[in-house]
């Protein structure tokens, strides 16, 4: 029987603020899984700490709500041990790019076959609105006594520099686009990053739904707002690397796009390169039967509980008499 959206929902009361951008992410994720017909027990959702991090509790899949900034290493451990799991990681902008920035960087280097979705709203919501690492210099959101004294991290540029092989941006209120982007990310062979511009209606009064939608700048001719967000695919941009020699040029193009902000903010796939070996493939080079017999599936004891591992050869190497 085909899986329906209800199969991915839990009865847990959702306590995000009314209008929170996370609702759009949750719905898009559930719709993506329905489209892909991924069995709930094959999916493991990891999250860090913050508003985003409650998402596993609303998903009827294996759900691992970890520590502040640490969702990635928890998830990597699980994926490494059981490569058959569909691992989807959620992080916040403070969670993933502040306290967890070291993991963000090193996850790129590994190119594990997983998906990482960052809920980027520019503020630390759950601690009442302090500026997060993605908030731009000089921006003052309403809970902050002073304008932001730091420049914002550019997560897309950072991802390009550290080896993510799928890098996309989407928007929490464009559920159709976000759903398709998540599906592409899951289908991608390698480490996929989706930055979701997510509105925090409670604490970020600058990067609001109206701001992204351009309600403050109506076209004098039509009277319609001119949205700040636009879709890369509508401009003919193609970030997919199909031959190794394209990688550098496409990285440079994506880098330029990553720095567009303000009046025009690109969404869609900035960069994708499936020619890079995944971590799983790299391990298989060293351990031939890794995928057939991954750590989680190895038998370590016989029926009587005796160790099934032979270390005879290793002991032989150490033998002196």
């Amino acid at each position, binding site marked *: 029987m085909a899986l329906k959206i209800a199969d991915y929902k*839990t009865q847990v009361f959702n306590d995000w603020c009314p209008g929170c951008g996370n609702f759009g992410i949750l719905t898009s994720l559930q719709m993506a899984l329905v489209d892909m017909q991924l*069995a*709930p*027990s*094959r999916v*493991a959702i*990891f999250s860090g*700490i913050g508003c985003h991090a*409650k998402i*596993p*509790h609303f998903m*009827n*899949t*294996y*759900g*691992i*709500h*970890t*520590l502040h900034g*640490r969702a*990635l*290493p*928890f*998830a*990597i*451990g*699980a994926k*490494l*041990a*059981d490569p*058959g*799991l569909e691992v989807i990681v959620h992080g916040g902008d403070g969670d993933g790019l502040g306290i967890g920035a*070291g*993991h963000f960087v*090193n996850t790129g280097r590994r190119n594990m076959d997983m998906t990482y979705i960052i809920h980027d709203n520019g503020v630390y919501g759950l601690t009442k609105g302090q500026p997060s690492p993605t908030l731009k210099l000089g921006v003052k959101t309403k809970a902050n006594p002073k304008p932001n004294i730091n420049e914002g991290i550019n997560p897309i540029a950072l991802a390009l520099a550290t080896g993510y092989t799928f890098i996309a941006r989407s928007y929490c209120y464009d559920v159709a686009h976000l759903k398709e982007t998540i599906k592409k990310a899951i289908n991608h062979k390698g480490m996929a990053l989706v930055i979701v511009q997510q509105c925090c209606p409670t604490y970020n009064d600058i990067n609001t739904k109206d701001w992204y939608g351009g309600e403050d700048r109506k076209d004098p001719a039509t009277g319609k707002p001119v949205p700040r967000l636009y879709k890369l695919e509508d401009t003919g941009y193609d970030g997919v690397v199909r031959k190794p020699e394209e990688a550098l040029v496409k990285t440079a193009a994506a880098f330029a796009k990553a720095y567009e902000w303000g009046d025009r903010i690109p969404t869609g796939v900035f960069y994708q390169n499936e020619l890079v070996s995944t971590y799983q493939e790299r391990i298989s080079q*060293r*351990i031939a039967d*890794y995928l057939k*017999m991954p*750590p*989680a599936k*190895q*038998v*370590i*004891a016989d029926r009587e*509980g*005796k*160790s*099934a*591992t*032979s*270390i*005879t*050869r*290793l*002991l032989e190497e*150490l*033998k*002196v*008499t």
Partner: protein
Amino acid sequence: MDTKKSDFIWMAGGPQGSGVDSSANIFARACCYGGLHVYGKREYSSNIKGLHSYFQIRVSTEKVEAMVDRVDLLCTFDAESVVRHIWEVTPGGGIICDTGVLETKIFSIPTLPPSFLEEFRKNLDEKGLHPETVNDLLSELKKNDVRIYAVPYLEMLKEIGKEVGEEQLSKLTRMINVLTLGVSFGLVNYDKKNVEKAINNIFGKKPSIVSMNLLAFNKAYDHAREKFGDTGFKLNTIKTDEERIFLQGTQAVALGKLAGGCRIQAYYPITPAADESEYLEEKQVLENGGAIIVMQTEDEIAAITMATGAALTGVRSATSTSGPGFSLMVEGLGWAGINEVPVVINYYQRGAPATGLPTRHGQDDLRFAIHASHGEFPRIVLCSGDIEECFYDAAQAFNYAERYQTPVIHLIDKALANSNMSCKMLDPRLVIIERGELLNEADISGKNYRRFDFTDTGISPRLPIGTPGAVFWNTGDEHSETGHITEEPMMRTRMLEKRMKKLDTADREIPLGEKIKFFGDEDAPAIIVSWGSPKGAILEAMEMLKNDGYRTGFLQVRMPHPLPKEYITKVLGKTSKKIDIEGNYSGQLAGIIREKTGILMDYFVLKWNGRPMSSDEVYNALLRILQNKAQVRQVLNGGS
């Protein structure tokens, strides 16, 4: 009474990177091949090249598990090694040195730190000596019946170079270590074949290196035989039928983990733990199928969280670290605790806090291992006392972790990690795997699985994530049986109590024999309590005291948490002298015993100078206590 005179103590000293380790490995192996037992202690600086390091090897006809405070034959690669260890050489012993260092001025050796030189000069003044050069110093020592074997290393190397057509001196000087080995073995007239076999073992991968080293060894050996003749030392091979291995502590742990079914190891490089992970990675593909994955992470936070994430899939996983790394892991440890995830931490202590003594010994972290993390959750702390225990404990740690679904900290220390010894063949058949209440797809079919169900034991049957037919949730927040967040007072009370109950269950179920070992007489008038690596020195000291007519008992605490308090109360309650021996300032185990039993130890023998305890110093400290001449607190400071 002295430690066994018949034992032969050899020491190699030189700058780091000059081959001290390989010469000591060859020396030890060669002795093992001849049926002898060895125990080796490795001391090195936090430095890549140039600073002093040494390797001391005790050779005996019986199994030995501790070092003593003397050197019979000191084998030096440079002037500094002569100066550093000169007073350790026993009367009747000898020093091998390069003729090239004889004119070196002692107080101009740049790598000797001012504090050492100050101490050294004071020592000389007390002795009324005023040597200027190494030679002056050695001449003084001759009066002490110490023989000096000065060998022209450089000339010898040049000769060898001519023979093999190698003129590059830098390549030749790499063989100084083998020259000194040749002289050492020549002086004790040891069977050459065993040494050649050991050289082959160590350099075996490169035939040209092997042949050059064999040449150097033989030249030096023959030189020593010819020039120095018999020296009063004779190292004889003995026949043995026992199957033996020679290994270091980190290898024992690694092998125990493999046999125990560990299949994921996440680690961040740190001394002295990293040797274990490197060995595991090198040997990762297992001989009868399967493999262990060794993941080098970006930091220790990632190491423990990755190991924990892996453990959620049902795999046995671990991380291996030292104090600074464990400090970073602590939040992750708490997450594993509240989510009841079996994860093993092999914790190699070194001198602390902060960076402390990065390459030196310490037992400073017992309290930290027991208490680390905010909040309360059950954990099991297991302490190995010798290298063989390291093997069996490393495997057993996973059984505790899975049975009680909680982190297990396996405490080891630098002295165990970097000592190597011969011991009888380990027996992997003794490794039993107990996976606890681990469910599979069939077990939960048709049921509404809840990860944190309340049970009498506190143990909720566990299901690997990814198991078809179910889902569950984990969270670092307090949670209900389903694993969803709760802040309800009643649920909090019950859930925390459920977790803590597992500690009582563990305390009740784990047999006493796995928690403590007792040596000697339970009703002896003096009972020693200790944990970790001092074990070897304590056992030897007890043997010496027995020969002096003193009866002692030794309670080795292998599981300080949960502490077997009834037994400890029973044993300590009967004795008139309760003696705590451990490698830290405050007597951490004694404090825990007092907390759990109310018993205050009468005497403390403590040491925190970064060096392991020797049998001699433990013996002397105990003797003072037994003769009622001791202060309550004795601080040991032996070792160079």
